[in-house]
């Protein structure tokens, strides 16, 4: 592992993240709109189950959404780097392609985890009482999910090489991933065909793990769909697979 290279790739992203304050504000606006406007509206239609209102049910899903958007958007900056040439500066350097991928994925992880923890800080306003241990567990899940989705974003970025593809990724990948992740409705209530797609989505397992931690008491049909072990295993394996695929994709062009 080339720690120097990984460090400097991460440092560059963090520096740019801090400089672009507007990026952070718009990144936080989205989950807040979903939580307090969409969530509050739908909660009028959905009956309480096991004492959990709909706005509380979607809370893990909204944290997951924050991570989904910020991780993939962070990785997609590679398309920008390609377009503006900076990627070449990295690719001609004597650094292994895997260090480049790991550096990029860690940048996304840090940025996303910071954003997710800002949403997490809202828990008292939503009527939750979380212990320190729960908070730490949530942060760990957020970090692993962020790494996984950032690595997935890098894989996407290697397939697309111009900014026109940005809206394609937004509409045909990010949005469906969000809707088919158990964020807005329990997976077990979905029609069979959508259930299959949902099970292929790594975000599903991250949100499911968050549900385990945030609702330890169990909340009936609204509760988690998979075991904690399944969730962890899927995220770990998916992360590894994405890093390997992305590293391969960065090899020399034919």
């Amino acid at each position, binding site marked *: 592992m*080339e720690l*120097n*290279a990984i*460090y*400097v790739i991460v440092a*560059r992203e963090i*520096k*740019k993240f801090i*400089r672009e304050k507007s990026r952070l504000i718009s990144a936080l606006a989205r989950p807040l709109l979903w939580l307090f406007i969409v969530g509050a509206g739908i909660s009028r239609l959905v009956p309480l189950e096991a004492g959990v209102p709909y706005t509380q049910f979607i809370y893990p899903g909204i944290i997951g959404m924050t991570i989904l958007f910020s991780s993939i958007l962070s990785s997609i900056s590679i398309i920008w780097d390609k*377009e*503006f*040439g*900076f*990627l*070449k*500066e*990295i*690719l*001609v*350097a*004597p*650094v*292994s392609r895997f260090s480049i991928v790991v550096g990029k994925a860690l940048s996304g992880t840090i940025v996303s985890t910071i954003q997710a923890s800002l949403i997490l800080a809202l828990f008292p306003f939503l009527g939750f009482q979380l212990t320190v241990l729960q908070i730490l567990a949530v942060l760990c899940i957020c970090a692993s999910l962020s790494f996984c989705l950032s690595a997935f974003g890098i894989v996407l970025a290697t397939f697309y090489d111009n*900014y026109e593809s940005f809206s394609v990724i937004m509409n045909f990948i990010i949005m469906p991933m969000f809707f088919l992740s158990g964020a807005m409705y329990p997976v077990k209530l979905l029609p069979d065909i959508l259930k299959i797609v949902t099970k292929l989505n790594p975000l599903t397992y991250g949100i499911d793990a968050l549900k385990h931690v945030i609702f330890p008491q169990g909340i009936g049909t609204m509760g988690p769909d998979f075991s904690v072990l399944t969730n962890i295993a899927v995220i770990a394996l998916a992360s590894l697979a994405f890093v390997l695929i992305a590293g391969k994709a960065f090899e*020399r*062009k*034919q």
Partner: protein
Amino acid sequence: MPIIQVERLTKTFGTLVAVNDISFDVEEGMIFGFLGPNGAGKTTTISILCTLLSPTSGRTLIAGFDCMREPAKVRKSIGIVFQDTTLDKDLTAYENLVFHAYLYSLPKAERRERVDAVLRFVDLYDRKDDLVRKFSGGMKRRLEVARGLLHRPRVLFLDEPTLGLDPQSRSNLWEFITELPKKHNVTIFMTTHYMEEAEVCDRIAIIDHGKIIAMDSPEELKKMVGGDVVSITTTDNARARHDIEHLFRMNVAEKENALYVTCSRGDTCIPELIRTLGERVLSVRIQRPTLNDVFLKLTGKTIRDEEVSGNDSIRASIRAHRRR
């Protein structure tokens, strides 16, 4: 041992043969120029040498390392200034260089010192904390050269280094580039489609349609054209023409009221002509052969005819627009 060795290199993209079985060596410490029109295969060759692209066949070695088998060692030995800027415009000049220093694992103790030294060398030390987006084209190019030298490579690649620069920055950059081999102990491999600029090279390979059609020093290449062209206007061109043809046994061409004579050494030819024609001479002009004439002679076309459409500039302006 030559610092760059290229043996029977070929690269095809589908049916297009971008580089067609070329071989050449570059000796250490020289400025080697790859000269040819756009689309001749220059950038493809550089991409292969820089380990960004795999060749279809053939072998390339840099500092004795095989570009395919030992890419990490090749990457350590080279610095590159690409055709389009590859700086991060949202970072400062200093940050761009520090990024590079880490990427190339420069020893911690030397990092600062070496970054400062190259910044001074390219005369950008005073602007080191400015964001690169505020820099002019010439400053960006100088910063990229500085970055390319930071890790002390043995070969510095310059792909169309003066593209898009104004004439002033261009000549400044050339002055600066010609000093590099001595000051930094580096071999320069550059591409250009500006014939005048290739004059600074110690050796030039002229490439067209993926093939090297000539390779020599600029002086030798220019001798291929056959010498200097002297043009004369006189009070009586017909009589002057008759005199020159009979006394000097030289071919004379007449175009737009001027006589054109080709001779191997224009500087000694002119006094003789004036002595012979005496007061009839109105004006004399000498034209030294240019590399453009060489290209014209070799391919039957001038390099400018080959300039591609405005596509590139459209793309560049879209990019500039988007970033706002």
